């Protein structure tokens, strides 16, 4: 009947078909093809692999050590000079590398710990889920700067515990962003339609199959871009460690040079530019990934 019902050009909302329906049955002599998964597509797979490789490299290889020193006597008559700006560039990059590395290591903790938190939060047992929920909320809504001071004091007060400042930095980053990651996981899991859970029950799947074949594959496309955004956010918070724990990142570089040469404009503008040169492409990549996956999800 519908084909003759006149409509306007304006699209009338039609109930959209939610994914998950099996395609039409093939004829008997056809081979069953592996369904096309979003993560197998080269346009998603290649960049994601490259990024993961790059980040792993970053995690493994430490920055060359050594003090920051400008060894340059900038004149006092102008407030900004390009020669000084570019002279500082190599050392800034060294600081930036340290910052990025702490971010990646911290985020490895965040991604793992976040999953644990998400599971504890989902627990049926309220003795487990409620304190976890409170802890997540507490850590999320207090400044990471204060948390870093707190961690430093805590480490100092325990005699047998001595941690490198950079270790404290990525531990705090990791725990702080684990709370964000856990919310991302939770939202991702909740985004799987109720019908999918019911279908898994109806098919009598065991919990492992249910999670690994049904829930997680559908949750990941929602979670991945959010995690990417938090990775970028963690990168922006990592320089706080330089101010609190004196880790040798970009901000520490700028503070050191400023104390040495009393010329603050160039080092701070330089780290601002350096930061944008990393965070903007990173954010752009995340958006691309988001768009690709959104397209796939239709």
């Amino acid at each position: 009947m519908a084909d003759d019902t006149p409509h306007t050009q304006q699209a009338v909302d039609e109930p959209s078909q939610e994914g998950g329906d099996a395609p039409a049955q093939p004829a008997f002599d056809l081979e069953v093809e592996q369904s096309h998964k979003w993560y197998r597509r080269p346009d998603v797979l290649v960049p994601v692999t490259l990024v993961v490789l790059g980040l792993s490299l970053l995690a493994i290889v430490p920055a060359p050590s050594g003090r920051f020193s400008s060894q340059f006597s900038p004149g006092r008559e102008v407030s900004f000079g390009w020669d000084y700006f570019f002279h500082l560039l190599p050392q800034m990059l060294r600081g930036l590398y340290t910052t990025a590395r702490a971010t990646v290591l911290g985020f490895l903790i965040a991604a793992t710990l976040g999953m644990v938190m998400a599971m504890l939060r989902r627990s049926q047992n309220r003795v487990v889920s409620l304190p976890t929920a409170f802890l997540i909320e507490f850590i999320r809504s207090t400044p990471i700067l204060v948390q870093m001071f707190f961690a430093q004091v805590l480490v100092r007060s325990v005699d047998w515990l001595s941690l490198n400042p950079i270790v404290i930095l990525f531990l705090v980053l990791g725990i702080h962003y684990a709370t964000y990651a856990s919310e991302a996981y939770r939202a991702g899991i909740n985004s799987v339609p109720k019908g999918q859970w019911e279908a898994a029950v109806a098919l009598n799947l065991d919990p492992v199959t249910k999670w690994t074949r049904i829930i997680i594959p559908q949750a990941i496309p929602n979670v991945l871009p959010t995690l990417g955004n938090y990775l970028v956010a963690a990168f922006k918070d990592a320089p706080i460690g330089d101010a609190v724990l004196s880790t040798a990142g970009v901000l520490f570089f700028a503070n050191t040079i400023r104390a040495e040469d009393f010329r603050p404009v160039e080092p701070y503008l330089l780290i601002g530019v350096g930061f944008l040169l990393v965070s903007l492409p990173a954010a752009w990549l995340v958006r691309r990934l988001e768009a690709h996956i959104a397209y796939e999800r239709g």
Partner: protein
Amino acid sequence: MLTPGQYAQLWNGMLATVQILAGAFALGIFLSLVVGVGRLSDRRWVRGISFGFVEFARGISSIILLFIMVIAIPILLGDMIPWLRGRSVAVLGALALGVNMGGYGAEIIRGSILAIPKGQTEASIALNLNPTQRLRYVVLPQALRIILPPMGNLTIEILKGTALVSVVGGFDLMRATQNQIASMLARGAIGVTVLFVNVLVIYFILAQGVNALFRLAERALDRRFQQRPASKGVRIDATVGAETDG
């Protein structure tokens, strides 16, 4: 537990923190609106500038932006804008955090405007409202309901960001805390730990306060959408000619 004197100091610090937050929030909301609407402008250059601002404000780390704003900008632009010279760290810090908030807020506003059904704009064109009126009377009031929850989260992020002002030498709750550390170390590290737990709890309470305020606003808005209080509406008399009361 801390001594009353210590709590008094933390209280002063907290007031300073709230002031910085209020300043950053005011600037942040203003920038969010201007830039968020600018992102959807018909004029290319307005879109371009707005996009540039958003990318900058979201791309840069807030602590680095804070250092740039407090230390580098007054030196660099002080001759051009004398106002910047001699500004307190709190004001410059609020400025930096406001810019930061504006970048994220603009995207919230933009998204919420795009989420309003096209029919609403079409109806307001059919009523011959001009673009500013469409935005003010039709789109933004509806967008507000979508804006509030993420804006509340953003405000909490900015509240957390205010602690960074202490690092560039401003006075706030975090600075008030650090001022006490030296005297507390004499009593051992446990005292400092207790101090920090107190400070974390204060930040947590502030964040919950912000959260509660936004929830209240959401509830008020929901009520307005469902039913208007009679006092604000039109009195319906037996005769058709109606008058307003109040």
